[in-house]
């Protein structure tokens, strides 16, 4: 098992796609940060003072209940009205890149990270079928369940490592841009920890969706078919369904991924009642369960198909 794992790891490392994606990702990050830096400048002391004054004014209004409807309770996720107001009224000079935005930037770029994971997962699952080397592999290790499970583990690890690396590069580049052309005013002391938590969440979600792509590639025996099918499903099918039937959002993988990454539940807008907080349609725990169910079910399907079908 260990030997097979080492072999699969070497195979994944040797794929040109992996370094190409990493290099391409780093280049894109550099370009994006250069553009962000070019459109940003360090705030003047007057701008910082004005922002702080504005923040205090908004905080006072919030504590007086101006930010909530009469009788509306403090939204979920906040421990008190003060906690809510402190986070809702933080005001920093709007002169470009701000250190406090780091976790948000990680979360907002998660779509690209997940797309990268889809391509990686599909390729690591489909390439052997395209080259025909699956037959060669099976003449060395005929236990197909073992082959698929070890490969799934390697796919998950490679995706976590690749996405973690790219997001860390993004974070480091962002910190450099902030130092050169932005501001750290108003950034909470926990910004780095928050950012790394976001990186970890995005990497884990990307790994889950990458495994779904891997499973589809193993069933369809093709990288291209898997990427096409998955993009079609995630973007068109789930997008359209969620638009027409909002009530089933709690069963869709894209929504679940969004909840896990953003740590924000989806509320049931249809159940709005004055004076009552909205019921949660998809909470964090449910979203995690939804993603796990998708991954496990599709891997089981891939396992069954891989075990049952001839390799020609």
């Amino acid at each position, binding site marked *: 098992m260990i030997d097979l794992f080492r072999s699969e790891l070497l195979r994944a490392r*040797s794929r040109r796609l992996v370094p190409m994606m990493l290099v391409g990702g780093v280049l894109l990050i550099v370009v994006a940060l250069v553009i962000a830096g070019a459109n940003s400048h360090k705030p003047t002391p007057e701008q910082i003072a004005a922002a702080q004054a504005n923040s205090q004014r908004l905080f006072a209004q919030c504590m007086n209940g101006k930010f909530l409807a009469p009788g509306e309770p403090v939204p979920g996720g906040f421990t008190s009205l003060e906690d809510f107001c402190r986070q809702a009224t933080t005001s920093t000079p709007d002169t470009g890149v701000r250190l406090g935005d780091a976790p948000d930037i990680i979360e907002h770029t998660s779509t690209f990270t997940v797309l990268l994971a889809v391509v990686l997962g599909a390729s690591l699952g489909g390439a052997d079928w395209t080259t025909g080397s699956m*037959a060669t592999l099976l003449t060395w290790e005929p236990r197909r369940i073992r082959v698929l499970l070890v490969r799934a583990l390697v796919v998950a690890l490679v995706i976590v490592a690749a996405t973690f690396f790219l997001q860390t590069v993004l974070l480091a580049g962002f910190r450099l841009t902030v130092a050169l052309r932005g501001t750290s005013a108003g950034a909470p002391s926990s910004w780095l920890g928050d950012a790394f938590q976001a990186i970890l969440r995005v990497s884990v979600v990307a790994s889950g969706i990458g495994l779904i792509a891997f499973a589809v590639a193993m069933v369809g025996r093709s990288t291209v078919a898997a990427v096409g099918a998955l993009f079609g499903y995630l973007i068109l099918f789930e997008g359209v369904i969620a638009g027409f039937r909002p009530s089933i959002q709690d069963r869709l993988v894209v929504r679940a991924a969004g909840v896990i990454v953003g740590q924000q539940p989806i509320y049931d807008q249809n159940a709005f009642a004055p004076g009552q907080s909205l019921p949660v349609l998809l909470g964090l725990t449910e979203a995690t369960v939804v993603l796990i169910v998708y991954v496990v079910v599709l891997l089981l399907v891939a396992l069954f198909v891989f075990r049952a079908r001839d390799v020609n």
Partner: protein
Amino acid sequence: MGVIEVEGLRKEYRRLRGGRTVAVAGLDLEVPEGGVFGFLGPNGAGKTTTIRCLVGLVRPDAGTVRLLGTDVSHGLAKVIGKVGSIVEQPALFPRFSGRRNLQILGRIDGRDGREIDAALERVGLMERAKDAVRTYSLGMKQRLGIAAALLKDPSVLILDEPANGLDPAGIVEVRELIRALGAEGRTVFVSSHILSEVQQTADRVAILARGRLVKAGPVHEVLAAGRARGMLVRVADPEAGRRALESARLSSTVDGPLLRVDVRPDQGEQVTRALVAADLYPSELRPDEVDLETVFLELTKDEGLGP
């Protein structure tokens, strides 16, 4: 007990437009230990499907397949380490180097760099080991496939059309390699449709047609089964020769510049005597031998090209 044992093997494929194609129709086969075993058959006869069943890539619809005494459907993993194989074209990663391809496979079985080098050396690919496989010629890819099969130091080698696409020099190299492997005591199971190749390398053959075994045994026995009795004689005047042999009560027919005489090969003296008595001196006298190709065509002529 044979190294490879196949009993009642049957495999059908579903056609896209309905119906079924019978690839292997109740094949029985036994390959003894050691030496080179030729597995012959026209295209579509079921050779590759049989080999796929042997190495577990395809599940038979019926019958049993045993490798080294182990039922492939249950215990292939126990013996796969002793079985090296190439099924059709050696399928490897084209963008990886030859060495990297072998490293990936070798790690599964705990093979180290020294063993990889030895396998590359054996097939003459050491100098191109660092080059991407996509830059290899067809012959080099075949040799790399053989190197991958040899990496396990197998006691059984299953090679599906190993000379396919090779140039004459490549064919000779592969032939010599197969002979050497067989001489080392390994069992080399080679499928081919290049019959002259098999005739030169194999100790035993099996001939397959329409998914069924038509003939199996040592090469000389299979050749004998299809051998036309008689001798071929070249004389200046074949017609005069025919009459001279007739007067000596030896039946013959004129076949171009030759006389085909219906005698056993050990009756050459009788033929010479009859011809010399008529003042005809043979410039050539030889047994009317047939090659494997003739036997093969004779045995498979009623079977068609495939299922």
